[in-house]
């Protein structure tokens, strides 16, 4: 969790950057207040997000596709589901193409990341970002923002992997290798197994896992957004 520590008090940083920043899609994003961290989790809107990337190093690797859909309280809407291919500047390494199935040809007809980011930022405005192992999504996005707009990205983040870790801790169970992978976590909640591997279905998969996780927690107490976030 140490990775998140220096990012505390995002609301303050939002205000500071908003004043400092020239007009840009990122500034538009900061114009909208973050959801209240004291709000009941059901009053909050979330954006389930996933990317396919050329690798896991946010400094070197590039985003190949972005998938997201909204969750309003306890309900995920497929009507808002979006999937966008982005055009990388480098060549797609063979080993990552095996995973996501995005080849150079398809990617070269896609939009440049600069053109994709505004869509994603608009969708994220006023919402909490939700992903499985969200540190990847968060840092890739922040890096891209820094490169394109000169400022980093911050916002409340819900990480279904972190939530799953808490479940293990609260039950005093030891975590075995693979337990925290999205597919395995989903299996524990009786969620269906998705064969496909793309940004949108993984975003949906993470969103469903989130709904299952909070539904399971719900009988304990009133849950606030801050009980679910890794960054808030």
């Amino acid at each position: 969790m140490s990775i998140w520590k220096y990012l505390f008090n995002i609301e303050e940083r939002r205000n500071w950057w908003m004043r400092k920043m020239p007009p840009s899609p990122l500034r538009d994003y900061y114009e909208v207040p973050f959801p209240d961290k004291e709000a009941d989790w059901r009053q909050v809107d979330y954006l389930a997000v996933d990317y396919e990337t050329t690798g896991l190093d946010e400094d070197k690797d590039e985003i190949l596709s972005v998938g997201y859909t909204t969750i309003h309280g306890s309900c995920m809407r497929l009507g808002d589901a979006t999937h966008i291919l982005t055009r990388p500047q480098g060549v797609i390494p063979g080993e990552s193409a095996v995973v996501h199935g995005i080849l150079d040809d398809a990617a070269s007809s896609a939009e440049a990341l600069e053109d994709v980011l505004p869509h994603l930022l608009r969708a994220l405005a006023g919402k909490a970002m939700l992903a499985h192992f969200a540190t990847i999504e968060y840092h890739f996005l922040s890096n891209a923002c820094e490169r394109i707009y000169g400022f980093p990205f911050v916002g409340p983040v819900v990480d279904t992997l972190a939530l799953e870790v808490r479940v293990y801790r609260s039950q005093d169970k030891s975590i075995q290798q693979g337990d925290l992978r999205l597919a395995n976590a989903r299996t524990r909640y009786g969620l269906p197994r998705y064969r496909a591997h793309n940004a949108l279905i993984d975003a949906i998969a993470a969103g469903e896992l989130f709904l299952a996780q909070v539904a399971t927690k719900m009988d304990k107490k009133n849950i606030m957004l801050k009980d679910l976030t890794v960054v808030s």
Partner: protein
Amino acid sequence: MEVELLEIRDFLVLHHPFNQLSIDALNGVLGDIEIRYLRRGTDIRQDHGLMESLYLIRTGAVELQGHDGELLARLAEGDMFGYRASPREEQDDIRGKVIEDCLVYQFPASAVDDLCEQHPQLDYFLAPVGGDRLRDAITHVGDDSNSQLSMMTTRIRDLITREPVIMPPTATIRETAVAMSEERVSSILITQEEMLQGIVTDRDLRNRVVAKGLDYDLPVTEIMTGETCTADINDYAFEAQLQMARQNIHHLPVLDEEKVAGMLTATDLTKHHTTSAVYMVSDIHKQNDIESLQEISTKSADLLVNLAAADVTADSAGHVITSVVDALTCRLIKLAEDQLGSPPVPYAWLAAGSQARSEQTAKSDQDNCLLLDDSYDEKKHGEYFQQLARFVCDGLDACGYFYCPGEMMAITDKWRQPLHAWKKYFSKWIDQPEPKALMLTCVFFDLRCVCGDRSLFRGLRKYLQEKCRGNRIFLAHMAGNALTHRPPLGFFRNFVLIHGGTHDLTFDLKHTGIVPIVDLARVYSLAAGINLVNTQDRLKAVAEGGEVSEEGARDLQDTLEFVSFLRIEHQARQIRAGEDADNFMSPKDLSNFERNHLKDAFSVVRTMQNVLSQRYKI
């Protein structure tokens, strides 16, 4: 939609009615989906939006409860509930309870209405009444019927294309011949006030007039065939074909009740292909020993497979298959009489149970009895009939129609009795309806004369009819008995399934689906004093008589057809796989489409059972 939603679309495609939509239409549907996760124990109440959305279960299980908390259905993956998903009469008080954590796809009511407006397939399926949906299923199942065997499903009514060509009995031979020539027909009916007097064919003109040099001005009654076979306009075409094959005739007058309705010729029928059943029956009538009959009856399994492959209706398949055991019975009786000499007193051989109702499918046990004339004297005639019954029942057993485990067969002394003894039996069963009596009543109230003296049988039937009609106490007992087999609440994994034994994890299609309807129809027709035995015929007749609502009767007819059809397909599948046919089906063998409709079927039966139970205050 985004192609990346394939995983979700693929799920919809597997489930009726979404599988009826084009890919484009499905892509549109995806946008309306809201995904929710419902925790075990969640109560989806009326005021909590149960009827504000249509829910499709992706994973997990939900229980639907009625007004008094009674269990209506257990639903699992692929099942729907909520807005427009349940039959109308259940909608008001329904509540849902999540019994296993669920991922559900939820369609808001307004989206459902929009979708239904755009896609008639959805509109039809999500129409509020169970029965209508079932009718949809039956037409759907029977879509690509094979014309080869269409005779099995065609009624004679549909084959008659013109008004009958008729002459009065006062006409001369010449006038008759002129009329035939003008009308270009090979036969003509002689009628008086629409009543059939006789028939004249080309062959009669050749053999009886020209060859004998008869005077053309003689009245036609001189050469007509007076006593002739006839067919009923509501019979199946194959029954007419059987009759022609058996009697070696080519023209069959068709009657609508007593009146002449038309003429059916061999040519009309050969337009349709001949069928294996017809060959089997005429073959049976040519055999002179049990061994050859045995050999022929091994083919009856193929017959069932052919019928299933041809998509004939279950009702007509029942008639066809029963016609084979009828033919076997008749032939065996003929062979017995050849051996034992002619019978000392008149008798009738009666089939009981499913044979009587013409509802046999794969080979089943034999249920039969012997009705003897009142002049029967056990000392003098007992031996003869005992031997006759022994010969026939043994023969049927050898042909695969095994001895009835309940011994309801003519070889049992008790079931080989003169008319007055039978009347006494029935009188006792009706006046003292104990459980054992009711069980016997169910078997012996479905009786049909297969062979022998029909007037003897009519006497017994008339007696029963009068004894039962309006007898509220007896009818209430029969109604109570008709409620003993309740269809299951729904399919929920193993919930309604049989556990252990040879039929592990299956459900009994006969006792959960067919027997309840047969029982209901029997009560209706006893109450209405109707003589019919076939369940479809009974339901048709009671609807006209008002014993049950027309809609209710129609729903039951469709339900019976649907469940019986599933049974025949199941048995055909077993026979093709080299297994013995039975009534035990695994839910795995059902398509989702069939599962949904089976649920509708069960809901129709339960509704009708509830109506009956209220009517007789059981």
